[in-house]
């Protein structure tokens, strides 16, 4: 069972000036984080239930909370997956989806089954020996609605991005 009450409470607590500006004692900051994480966990169930109800299919929905640091175990291991984009705005949007992946070629299909242009780029840090590919594709979602994109890994290609795009180090 999901619910939004716990996240609502955590968000209410986080309106305190100590939470907004970071002036709390450290153990209080830890508690803010704990409450928000617990609230979001319940909300994930709620969102999953809503998507299952609206989409007519119950899936093992995954919320990758570490996308901002390019970590998502599902997209980095699965050969096929779905990306559901929910738009909370009252007008339609186009958004660039970025997902960490493990290979260099993917096929992305729109909700209508059409091929969507996609690219994989390397986002690894300078001097890093490991490649960190990220899949990029544009996705649209209707007002207050969602769209489902299907992603399939293709037979691997050799990455050539380093050679083609590296530029001389700037020096002064």
């Amino acid at each position: 069972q999901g619910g939004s009450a716990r996240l609502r409470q955590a968000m209410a607590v986080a309106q305190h000036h100590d939470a907004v500006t970071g002036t709390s004692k450290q153990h209080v900051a830890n508690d803010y984080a704990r409450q928000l994480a617990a609230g979001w966990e319940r909300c994930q169930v709620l969102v999953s239930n809503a998507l299952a109800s609206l989409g007519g299919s119950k899936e093992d929905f995954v919320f990758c909370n570490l996308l901002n640091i390019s970590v998502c175990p599902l997209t980095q291991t699965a050969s096929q997956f779905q990306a559901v984009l929910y738009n909370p705005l009252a007008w339609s949007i186009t958004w660039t989806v970025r997902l960490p992946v493990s290979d260099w070629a993917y096929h992305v299909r729109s909700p209508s089954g059409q091929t969507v242009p996609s690219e994989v780029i390397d986002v690894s840090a300078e001097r890093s020996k490991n490649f960190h590919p990220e899949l990029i594709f544009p996705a649209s979602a209707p007002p207050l609605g969602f769209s489902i994109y299907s992603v399939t890994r293709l037979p691997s290609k050799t990455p050539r991005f380093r050679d083609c795009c590296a530029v001389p180090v700037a020096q002064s």
Partner: protein
Amino acid sequence: SHTLVIQNEHLRVTFNPNTGLLQEIENLDQGLRLPVSQTFYWYNASTGDFTHPQASGAYIFRPDKTKPFLLSHWVKTRLVKKALVQEVHQNFSAWCSQVVRLYPGQRHVELEWTVGPVPVGDGWGKEIISRFDSQLKTNGRFYTDSNGREILERRRDYRPTWDLNQTEPVAGNYYPVSSRLYITDGQVQLTVLTDRSQGGSSLSDGSLELMVHRRLLLDDNRGVGEALLEPGDEPGVGLVVRGRHLVLLDTVEAAAARHRLQAQREALAPQLVLAPAGKGTPYSPG
């Protein structure tokens, strides 16, 4: 030796070939071109002295000098130019980097910074800022929002309701930035949207700065009773923060419509949910 440029149908962003730093933003729709540099600096946190014992801490921002230290005179850069994204990766130091990014159709420049862990082994608390410098004649004025609602005019070394005796030239001009900060010369407006509440200011005409991270060694004696260090921070590793600044260059007339809509897109950003393919089972609420 060659100028780095990223460009889409609306914007062109140029980087200095010698330093690798942002050098110019051009709004191609409006024909506006603004030389603007952006880089990171840090203020040395005050530890207080005999006459003014106030130290910089959780509540109090009090640098011990008015001029911040430049983090790096030049950056290592890497250009990624593809059809769906153009990025310049800038490496300022071992603990500060940034990606300047343009997607097709986008009317703002996205600066995604990663800062930390801030080193404090030298015994100096540090407050890190991202600063934009331009030639805009802003007459001591800049604008910050109030919780994403009303935009308020801020004037350097001035308060609208009393005669100010400015004793803190940096901190005394810092204001809360909930979602945006901008400067204008009456014709051109440079706006920076933030993804979180930060402190910001314009300490000289044409300049904008936002504090992105801070790591301090002393408590400011205002009640919290702790320095801004992480738990178990002996000897400590420090936190890494990653955030985004969205930079818009526009005419004054067009700027508000652009930054307000973009701010809504940020505040109500799409939620991405993933699922393994082909494992679904038919479902109906009944």
